[in-house]
């Protein structure tokens, strides 16, 4: 009886040590990496859809998709190892696109809020001219290039 208790005690000791070790390894070596890849792809996917909707179809769908993309960006921040400079730039452009959508829907206040968010992020990232005029100009060029590349 004493021997069985001794064996169980040693096994239990091993389990107590192994449990956090297993959690740590699976979390860091597998889950975090897969989650980071999945979140980046998910955001890119819905962002691409929003651009297509904005250019060719329904701005309301574009708004919903951009809001989803902003949410995905926020979920990534601080958690995903792939969340860096590029993702922040992408978030700024999501806000800028969203601002145009809101403006076309007549929501001036929301449009201003989104544009100021975009400006804040872009100036924080070191953009030389984060003025509204410059952002609008860049958006216009990017929309035109999206259209021409899709027509080809």
């Amino acid at each position: 009886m004493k021997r069985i208790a001794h064996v169980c005690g040693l096994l239990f000791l091993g389990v107590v040590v192994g449990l956090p070790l297993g959690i740590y390894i699976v979390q860091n070596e597998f889950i975090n990496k897969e989650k980071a890849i999945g979140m980046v792809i998910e955001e890119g996917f819905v962002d691409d859809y929003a651009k297509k909707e904005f250019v060719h179809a329904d701005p309301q769908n574009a708004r919903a998709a951009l809001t989803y993309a902003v949410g995905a960006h926020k979920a990534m921040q601080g958690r995903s190892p792939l969340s860096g400079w590029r993702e922040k730039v992408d978030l700024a452009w999501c806000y800028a696109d969203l601002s145009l959508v809101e403006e076309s829907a007549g929501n001036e206040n929301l449009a201003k809020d989104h544009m100021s968010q975009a400006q804040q992020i872009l100036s924080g990232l070191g953009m030389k001219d984060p003025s509204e005029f410059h952002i609008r100009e860049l958006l216009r060029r990017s929309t035109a290039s999206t259209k021409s590349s899709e027509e080809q």
Partner: protein
Amino acid sequence: MKKLLLRSILVIVGILIGGAVGGYVIFHRYARDYALVRAFAMAGIFSAVSKNEYEKNTSDAKRELIVQLKIWTDGIDSSATDPIMKNALRMNRGLHLRKIHP
């Protein structure tokens, strides 16, 4: 000496059991809470493999693309998927189907 060895083996077996249980539990929770993110990661991997196979001009490219489309179809059929994401999946599935059946 033999006793010490047996004790060490018992502790190591315990560590392995604990590690397996811990890993399984955390992975199970992740798979349950982040099903969509997992699906996107898988679809992304299949997409990258498919493009690579296509560039090598092998017949596997189509198979990988079909797996990717199957993952998207499952996302469209799932009630847990956001309606706007369903639309995005539908659009992309349509565009990719053109690659298989031009």
